[in-house]
């Protein structure tokens, strides 16, 4: 196994991720020479196709970038276009948007925890195999995921590509009876989410410590979800925030570049290899969580800074519990607003917005003509930002595990990639593993 001087490992199609991609690792004389995460899914050209569309269309069109996090796209598109038009949606309409987004966090994170990521920790190929050994566990996951989907169906009409979101708010307000039903479902979901946190804490976490800059939104009085100030932390665990900047200056700090081996663009923040998502949110905003949730994190082995990406599953579980509690809070405080949407008249201008998609910070910018026609659109999805960090992790991870045979090394690399819940369709583009031991 390790006696060969050259070795090439290849995952030609990465499983349990969204979209299509591959990984190529080249090892020469016992040293990892190169790691390439290649996203071969053909480009879908959203930014180009949005040009010339009407300003109320990105909300429905950009949802189709990703079937797992359509609400993240819808919320970010709405806010960016509204920003261009000089409109801010607040009060109960903003609360309903936030409730819808909580639904997506519950659904998307739970899908990732139970169906995509947990089987790795248990050495199983999939959740269906897991169901054969512990059906109640998988049923709990599916029930929790369904609670998230139910929120999306009530607020959005359906869980994949909701239809009820529009500029200024919603097409139709939810009815009291529908919200009462959600409140009842959330009581069970809260118990399931608490049990999920406790269960993820018992998993066996491989040892890996990473050094990436971390970028997440920081909100004034809440854990980040639908807004906040982009805040960049350096790689050192105890360093203060390097910088925070207004969303309107995002593209001056986060720069996308093309790499030859991938259809997804890669990004860096102020020249640093950076990471978005659960580790970044925890670093940037764990102090904004209710103290009980922070304590749950501490009990599960999370410090103020978590630098082991395998533990992101615990942060996701805590975020699901937070989203369930936040949804309960929003429902309790809900009073029907006077109208389902505020008017958003078009005007010439440029608008920006960033929100926290479950897998990380998502940014949109739109330039509008006076009649509302989209002149240019720019979308920076989380996976594009995370791609360089994933490659860097793998380099170190593989170096420490060269004694493993190809099949086992490949399996563990896939798990390491799945730590980031990469969304390749989102990266407007994902994954196949080649380890070349040369």
């Amino acid at each position, binding site marked *: 196994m390790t006696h060969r001087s050259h070795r090439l490992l290849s995952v030609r199609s990465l499983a349990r991720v969204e979209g299509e991609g591959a990984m190529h690792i080249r090892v020469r004389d016992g040293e990892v020479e190169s790691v390439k995460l290649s996203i071969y899914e053909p480009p879908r050209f959203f930014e180009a196709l949005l040009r010339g569309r009407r300003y109320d269309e990105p909300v429905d069109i950009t949802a189709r970038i990703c079937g797992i996090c359509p609400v993240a796209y819808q919320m970010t598109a709405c806010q960016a276009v509204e920003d261009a038009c000089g409109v801010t949606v607040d009060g109960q309409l903003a609360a309903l948007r936030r409730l819808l987004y909580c639904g997506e966090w519950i659904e998307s994170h739970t899908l990732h925890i139970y169906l995509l990521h947990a089987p790795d920790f248990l050495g199983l190929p999939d959740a*269906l195999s897991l169901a054969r050994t512990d059906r109640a566990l998988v049923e709990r996951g599916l029930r929790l*995921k369904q609670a998230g989907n139910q929120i999306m169906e009530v607020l959005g009409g359906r869980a994949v590509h909701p239809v009820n979101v529009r500029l200024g708010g919603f097409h139709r307000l939810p009815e009291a009876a529908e919200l009462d039903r959600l409140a009842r479902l959330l009581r069970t979901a809260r118990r399931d989410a608490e049990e999920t946190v406790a269960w993820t804490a018992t998993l066996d976490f491989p040892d890996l410590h990473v050094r990436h800059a971390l970028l997440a939104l920081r909100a004034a009085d809440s854990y980040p979800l639908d807004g906040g100030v982009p805040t960049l932390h350096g790689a050192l665990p105890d360093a203060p925030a390097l910088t925070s900047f207004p969303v309107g200056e995002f593209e001056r700090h986060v720069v996308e570049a093309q790499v030859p081996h991938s259809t997804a663009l890669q990004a860096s923040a102020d020249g640093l290899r950076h990471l978005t998502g659960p580790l970044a949110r925890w670093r940037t905003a764990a102090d904004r969580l209710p103290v009980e949730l922070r304590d749950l994190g501490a009990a599960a082995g999370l410090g103020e800074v978590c630098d082991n990406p395998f533990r992101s599953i615990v942060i996701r579980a805590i975020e699901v519990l937070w989203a369930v509690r936040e949804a309960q809070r929003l429902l309790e405080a809900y009073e029907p607003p006077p109208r389902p949407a505020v008017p958003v008249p078009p005007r010439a201008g440029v608008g920006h917005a960033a929100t926290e998609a479950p897998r990380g910070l998502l940014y949109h910018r739109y330039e509008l003509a006076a009649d509302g026609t989209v002149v240019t659109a720019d979308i920076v999805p989380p996976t594009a930002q995370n791609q360089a960090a994933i490659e860097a992790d793998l380099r170190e991870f593989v170096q420490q595990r060269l004694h493993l045979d190809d099949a086992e090394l490949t399996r563990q690399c896939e798990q390491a990639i799945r730590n980031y819940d990469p969304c390749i369709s989102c990266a*407007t583009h994902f994954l196949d593993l080649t380890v070349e031991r040369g």
Partner: protein
Amino acid sequence: MSTPRPRLAVWKFSSCDGCQLTLLDCEEDLLPLADRVDVAYFLEASRAAGPGPYDLSLVEGSIAAQADVERIHEIRAQSRALVTIGACATAGGIQALRNGRDLDELLSTVYADPAYIDTLATSTPIAAHVPVDFELRGCPIDKRQLLEVVSAFLAGRKPDIPDHSVCFECKRRGVTCVTVAHGTPCLGPVTQAGCGALCPAFARGCFGCFGPSASPNTRALLPLLHADGLPEHDVVRLYRTFNAEAPAFRDAAGDALSPDEEDRR
């Protein structure tokens, strides 16, 4: 002696994964379904990738790169029945908006160096390349319809999927017609049912995400869309979204253009 369970495969081409996700969204039906079939290949859900042949292949996404063309032929050869799921697989999807446009211009809008990118100038439905046994519509598909299609193929019968328009579902559901009551432009009369008249139930006009119904009279709808305040280019836009390459919608977009606007294209 037990008979072997039918082998199910799920494939992805150019798409958002939403239709595959719809299978995982069948929460309470997912484990019972998995008890009845052998999920032989489903990369979004499992790293166990079993070789063919497969009894039923569900195909999501459109053909958008040269490698896709070879792959769909291999899948067809390995599949007893092949069912396409969703607007991308049945009509090219949102990414078909590239068709007829200058590929170099599209590439240079998104990429600094387009030379690396492997893509076709078109995004085409699966049926344009291989025979398809059944096409399930929707962007995304409806999970009840998906379960019906899978059950039907496992039972060896024809799926009971209606091809009438969204208007039937509105009437059945008792939803007030948004066009008649509020003058809201709506593609419901020419769009295939399946969503449960979702948009009208949420007080908005249908935007055609299930594609054209059987023999839709799109020309008859045109004056009504104009009367509801949609200028020509907005009618074109409406037809040219998630099912732009479905022939009836493509033709309707052409009909909506005035001759001089057609010239400018």
